């Protein structure tokens, strides 16, 4: 129990926050504050998203007609330009946007606060991670400016990547640097979670978002170095011709695929696991119910992370991989389905008898379950060997991973941004407009990618600049959807940006969330907490009560005992 002035000082509108405690370019450029780094990451990945999204719209416009005539007002793309568009779309989206998005932007801001600590373990390394991101992305884009583009596909498969005269070396070097950016983030998170948890915060009192970031960080640390050496060897192959990957010099192109997917399959889980963590938070907060099956969700994250290392060969079923290994990889692939399914079931069970608030972040969470459901289930088609042989490298695969990566990760990122936005900037967004943009994203997304399943099953290969006329109708639907999706995403960000500057003041804890970051003021102080946060269960929402004076939710310990309603008996089974 604290007195009223102190309570107001802690939860009221703060005078100095991490946003305004120092000013000027240098105070941002050389900051080691995890929240400022997080915001810079957020701006960076958003720019990358819009850039790569622009490439996507260009290539979708190109595919509007089967003979590559494009839209009437758009003009025509040559095959070489088309190839560059899909490559840059993929490479920027994967390496510069999805992989750093949730850990870099949301994780950086939220993770130390969820642990009740002042910063991540290695703040300077954190800043270095961001600058590596800038350099790496710069190198990727340098491929366009100085290298004559990039047309290998984001996978850089040899020997094409060695033969082509586009800027593969710029791009691979960029991806190499981005790998280190990712390693730094992961290493920092692992150490922070291990050594810097609040006093008494045991592993099973951690929010599930932390668990998922932890599992992600394991992958980042274990898998990303392999990408590093792969890309270095690729650079050595294309400059010195070392003869490891290039058949002309005695190398083996399939070996490159092993190298590449040893990283890039786990990287798929770098992309989706943090999203699952965000969804776990959103579902429980907006249902105001303890998450169902906490330990199953927590362990399923780690299980996915570790199993993710055993299934890389399922990208190579048709690559000339041996039959025996193909069978083994297929069998292990199916086991990954189980922990993913467990999460979905647990989220549904959390909704049961909850008190569900259908505001913007929750709409994104529900959209996630819908879209990830499709993405996950279509993964079964691709895991089944005989079916995969037919579907491999067709639009079916394109649709499948977009459902997971965009329908999953991007949706969760947007949901997470809406959820933590009032915490980060202290201001509330326009919920109606937020939900409208969420609806546009949801509809646009489905219209874009659902037809691609049909095309894929009918045999439309991916990465085709021109195609058979019979597929045109599906491509046209898809292109229209892509523009709707683009407007939706643009709208979602406009609503957020507007909120950051002009939104209503939000209060310390507008959503009655129980994890530690909500015990700081909004926006938080430079040192995160002006008091030592009171440790409670991250899913015990009854530990919070409404404070009329502050118009927000605060811990019982801070509230006036006379006004506090009695605590419900916690239900434990």
């Amino acid at each position: 129990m604290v007195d009223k002035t102190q309570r107001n000082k802690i939860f009221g509108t703060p005078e100095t926050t991490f946003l305004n405690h120092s000013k000027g370019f240098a105070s941002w450029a050389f900051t080691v504050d995890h929240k400022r780094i997080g915001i810079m990451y957020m701006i960076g990945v958003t720019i990358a998203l819009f850039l790569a999204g622009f490439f996507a719209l260009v290539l979708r416009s190109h595919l509007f007609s089967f003979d590559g005539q494009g839209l009437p007002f758009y003009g025509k793309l040559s095959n070489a330009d088309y190839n560059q568009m899909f490559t840059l779309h993929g490479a920027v989206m994967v390496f510069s946007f999805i992989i750093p998005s949730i850990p870099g932007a949301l994780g950086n801001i939220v993770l130390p606060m969820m642990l009740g600590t002042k910063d991540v373990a290695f703040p300077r390394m954190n800043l270095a991670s961001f600058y590596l991101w800038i350099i790496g992305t710069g190198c990727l884009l340098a491929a366009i400016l100085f290298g004559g583009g990039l047309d290998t596909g984001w996978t850089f498969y040899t020997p094409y990547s060695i033969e082509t005269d586009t800027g593969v070396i710029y791009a691979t070097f960029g991806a190499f640097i981005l790998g280190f950016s990712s390693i730094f983030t992961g290493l920092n998170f692992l150490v922070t979670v291990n050594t810097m948890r609040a006093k008494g915060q045991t592993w099973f009192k951690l929010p599930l978002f932390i668990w998922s970031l932890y599992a992600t960080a394991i992958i980042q640390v274990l898998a990303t170095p392999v990408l590093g050496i792969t890309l270095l060897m690729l650079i050595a192959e294309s400059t010195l011709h070392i003869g490891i990957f290039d058949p002309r010099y005695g190398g083996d192109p399939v070996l490159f695929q092993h190298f590449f997917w040893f990283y890039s399959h786990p990287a798929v889980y770098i992309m989706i696991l943090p999203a699952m963590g965000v969804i776990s938070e959103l579902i429980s907060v907006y249902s105001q119910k303890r998450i169902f099956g906490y330990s199953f969700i927590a362990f399923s994250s780690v299980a996915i992370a570790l199993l993710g290392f055993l299934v890389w060969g399922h990208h190579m079923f048709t690559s000339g991989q041996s039959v025996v290994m193909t069978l083994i990889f297929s069998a292990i692939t199916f086991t990954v389905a189980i922990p993913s399914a467990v999460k979905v079931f647990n989220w549904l069970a959390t909704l049961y008898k909850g008190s569900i608030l259908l505001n913007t972040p929750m709409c994104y969470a529900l959209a996630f379950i819908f879209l990830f459901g499709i993405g996950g289930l279509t993964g079964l088609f691709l895991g089944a060997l005989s079916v995969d042989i037919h579907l491999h490298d067709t639009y079916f695969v394109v649709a499948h991973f977009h459902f997971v990566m965009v329908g999953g990760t991007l949706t969760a990122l947007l949901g997470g941004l809406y959820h933590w936005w009032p915490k980060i900037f202290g201001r509330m967004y326009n919920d109606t407009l937020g939900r409208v943009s969420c609806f546009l994203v949801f509809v646009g997304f489905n219209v874009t990618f659902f037809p691609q399943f049909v095309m894929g099953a009918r045999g439309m290969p991916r990465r085709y600049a021109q195609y058979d006329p019979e597929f045109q109708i599906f491509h046209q639907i898809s292109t229209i959807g892509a523009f709707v999706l683009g407007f939706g995403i643009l709208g979602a960000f406009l609503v957020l940006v507007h909120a950051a500057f002009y939104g209503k003041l939000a209060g310390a804890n507008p959503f009655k969330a129980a994890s530690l970051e909500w015990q700081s003021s909004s926006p938080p102080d430079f040192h995160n907490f002006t008091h030592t946060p009171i440790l409670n269960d991250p899913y015990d929402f009854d530990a919070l009560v409404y404070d009329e004076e502050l118009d927000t939710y605060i811990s019982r310990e801070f509230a006036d005992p006379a006004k506090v309603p009695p605590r419900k008996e916690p239900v434990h089974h």
Partner: protein
Amino acid sequence: MIWQFPTLTALQSTEALEQLAIKQRVIDSSLGGTVPEYVLERKIETSNPFNQAYWFPEQASTYAESVDSLYMDIFFISLVFFVAIVAVMVYFCIVYRRKGGVIAPQPSSSHNTTIEILWSVLPSILLVYMFVEGAGTFWEMKVPKTDSEEIQVIAYKYGWQFIYPNGDTTSELHLVQDQPVVLKLQSKDVLHSFFVPAFRQKQDIVPGRYTTAYIEPNKAGQYRLSCNEYCGDGHSKMRTACIVHVSQEDRLANTEWKKPEYSAWENGEHLYKIHCAGCHNINSIAGTGPALNLTWNREGKTAGGEAFKANETYIKESILYPSKKIVEGFGAEGSISKMNSFKGILSETPGGDIDHVIAFLRYLQDPDSVSSEKLKDLPEEKPAAAE
């Protein structure tokens, strides 16, 4: 043009081959010049997504049906799960929505080990089914029947060459209904992928090695064949047709065969691949027989201790009468060689097959010692793909 919807003219699968005209259309190519493109009209059910005909092109190989049926099985299983998940989600969101801004969750359990184990384990039974089914068909796709015809496929930027057992080539793939075929795929430059949707078969083509694809076409018709692994600017142009003929005679009559022009050593190499590669390597490592790249002019001993020199006479003798002089280490003196005689299979006439093989052996040792002049009149062999 832009809004022109595709015509999905139904094509009766039983139509005779004569009616299958390849429509050639010329479209503008960014590669410069014009490239002919095959437009193949196929029958696709367009209305009912619960029917496999909605999802797939025609079935033209033996295993296509089991691929499709597994697909539909997974489709229905997924559909049940998906509809259940979304229905439950929507139902909960309606029933338990927050009313009037009052937060009032009802007491309920936050975990239940039994139910959690159940919903982890029960779906995995379905996963086992999917794996077993998929793996079984995959095995069928991979393991060739012994009586299959072998066709060499050479993929290059951006086209296809198909070489039949007699050396004739085509740029479309011509198969015969109910005649199993093993495609031996190789690439001239980068990765490509052989894909015929109607066969449900796909195999990447890797430069520097062979990959194989096995097909049992069981329905005559004309199907799309495309490159499915990104290979460069002309990737989407790397399409051709796969034509399944009703009979061998029909294939012979209705195909534009191109007679190849070989140099002596090239033909020798071709013969090597057909007849010798099973036992003899050309990478210095002995297989069932000695490595052939080290053979020409080599001096050694036979199993009986007799010295020999691998000159023309010796090689000719070894091909026609393999048991006469077995090289030391490859069989006992006087035993019957593991190698069959090629008498009657390879022509002995001067400038014939055996001379070509010898030219190839010499080429392996020193490419400059062999003339690369093309042979204009290759000896006529058996008729195309006769069995």
